[in-house]
């Protein structure tokens, strides 16, 4: 974690209201892993007192470029779209815990809803680089909100669902998951909390339906402590959670989600959690 002056090198609108900005920030590009985020300071002349957290969309250590993918939802993100190329903005990062891929997992299922693509996009790069097969299931409102396939690695299988049926499967993206649950060794998801809740319910019943062996230690042996990287690595489903955030370093306790072991800070214990760490009945 450090404060970085990231220089904007490219800003483009990939979809109506959705932007991908590229920043030259070698410190972030080399040090970050998929699932981590940065806390971006927006112009303070506009009366904004908080930074904005963004998942690191991609990071390229070779060029020192990191990209952020966001939707303009308020004054902070609107301010970001007006930043000019060459200007530097203040980022704190990389923050949070990353997705963990088990070394025995070959087939990875990535599930993204809307802007959730930004949360799992970098994981696709990591997995492809590691020679793993990746399927991304993507859900959006309509065809005009679908993440362009040209922005994904060629090796990835990309399946789309839209709520209005204008492209791909007509319905929620979670309806596509059962087709892949036998194929996938691990699943990773980012998106609206109801979607994650549905996925967690599916993941919880998966082992019984498929009768697959549990990854990790045999029954009776020591178990990995809840919340540890090892526990996340052995979990079938990892989810990236979202919450209104204050400090993003774990000091203010503002960004909690309710976990089975009590409140969990999204910025420190998350944003990536094993699905069984979250008390899903508290999530609506």
């Amino acid at each position, binding site marked *: 974690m450090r*404060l970085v002056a990231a220089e904007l090198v490219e800003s483009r609108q990939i979809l109506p209201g959705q932007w991908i900005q590229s920043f030259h920030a070698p410190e972030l590009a080399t040090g970050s892993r998929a699932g981590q985020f940065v806390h971006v300071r927006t112009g303070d002349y506009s009366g904004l*007192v908080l*930074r904005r957290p963004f998942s690191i969309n991609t990071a390229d250590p070779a060029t020192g470029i990191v990209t952020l993918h966001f939707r303009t939802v308020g004054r902070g993100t609107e301010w970001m779209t007006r930043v000019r190329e060459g200007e530097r903005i203040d980022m704190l990062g990389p923050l949070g815990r990353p997705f963990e891929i088990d070394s025995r997992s070959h087939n990875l299922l990535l599930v993204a809803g809307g802007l959730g693509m930004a949360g799992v996009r970098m994981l696709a790069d990591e997995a492809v680089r590691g020679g793993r097969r990746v399927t991304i299931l993507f859900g959006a409102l309509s065809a005009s909100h679908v993440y362009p396939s040209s922005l994904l690695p060629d090796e990835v299988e990309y399946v789309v669902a839209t709520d209005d049926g204008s492209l791909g499967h007509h319905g929620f993206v979670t309806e596509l998951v059962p087709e892949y649950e036998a194929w996938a060794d691990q699943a990773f998801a980012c998106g609206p909390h109801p979607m994650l809740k549905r996925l967690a319910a599916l993941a919880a019943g998966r082992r019984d339906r498929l009768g697959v062996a549990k990854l990790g230690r045999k029954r009776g042996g020591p178990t990995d402590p809840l919340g540890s990287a090892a526990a996340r690595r052995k979990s079938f489903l990892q989810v990236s959670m979202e919450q*209104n955030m204050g400090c*993003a370093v774990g*000091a*203010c*306790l503002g960004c*909690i989600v309710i976990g089975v072991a009590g409140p969990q800070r999204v910025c420190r214990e998350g944003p990536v959690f094993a699905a069984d760490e979250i008390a899903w009945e508290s999530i609506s």
Partner: protein
Amino acid sequence: MKAKKKVVISTEVRRSKAPKSGKRAFPPVWSEDSGAGRPIGAGRKVETSGDASSRPRVETGSAAVADLGAHVVARPTMSQREALDRVDLSVDIAPQRGLLLLNPILVASGTFGYGVEYGEVVDVQRLGAICCKGTTLRPRAGNPPPRVTETPGGMLNAIGLQNPGVDAVIEKYGPIWQGWQVPVIVNIAGESIEDYVEVARRLDGVPGVAGIELNISCPNVGKGGLQFAIDKDAARAVTAAVRRATELPLLVKLSPNVTDVRPIAKAIEEAGADAICAINTLSGLAVSVDRTRAFLGNTYGGLSGPAIKPVALRIVYEVAQVVSIPIVAIGGVTNLDDVLDFFACGAVAVQVGTALFADPELPVRLGDELRAECLRRGLTSYKPLIGTALPARTGAPSAKGAEYRP
């Protein structure tokens, strides 16, 4: 007996008592051509009369301005660095018991965790002090999410005093704090006087705990907290009870959610508090996006940030005129001007809170900027900046925290 105490304006005398002044020992401020070997006014002691009824006061209003001679740096040949080094920012915010800070910029409770969270980006040793997250007797899970939201010029929070309990805090962070030079002031909260007393008792004598900030003003917990801050008798009772339980320096944090803060501040002073912190957050509300309910999980939240600075200034201004213990100001500090405003209204130190989230380096930078500002004004101490905006003669604020020694 109070009146017998000497009021000393000499920076040298204060310096000699500052334990941590060894490295940055105050160089003599006299110039070669000064006949007396010291600048005009330096070392001058103001003796109060023995009249028991008259409270010793340092006139920090117009009198202080007239006294600027005592703080003039008369060495234009000095390098900038040396000149900055001889500006004295140290302050004792609990003169009766001793809580010496190297500079008057603190970080506010709840915004800096336990001091370790920001460790990778902030040099915590350069802070004046750290007020840690509100600590209660038993662990608390806090309020349901969402807990924070941004508002124009500020933010609402409703954390609900989530903390692992005082014993866990002592066990986990005590050893870390003990190794730090920066004082850690533990913010404590409770539902009853017994809770407060027990927490204070457990903190008493713990190495690494430099003081207690009594949080009687948290607006985000259903029971406890705020009720002690809105009634002067309750405030007096809880302050006095904690005072009896501990010898640690005791700061009491006021709530702005009251009609008139002055009787409460007075009661807290009379009950034996070493200093007053003002202010906690203002109670506020945000509405959900679909406007069917309140946004925050706790319904109500506490408003902080630049939006509340005028309220904080008003309360510091009022309190400064009725109490003679030091005042630590909190509320919307985002730059040096804010710090100077609070000093002008009678505060001897300020806490930075919400602004940290956007700019974690701000408190350390404010210390540097204050030092430079003192130098620019030709001061060797920031004390003359205190209380300059208070009405003259109607009870100037005490600069006891700054100038007063028993």
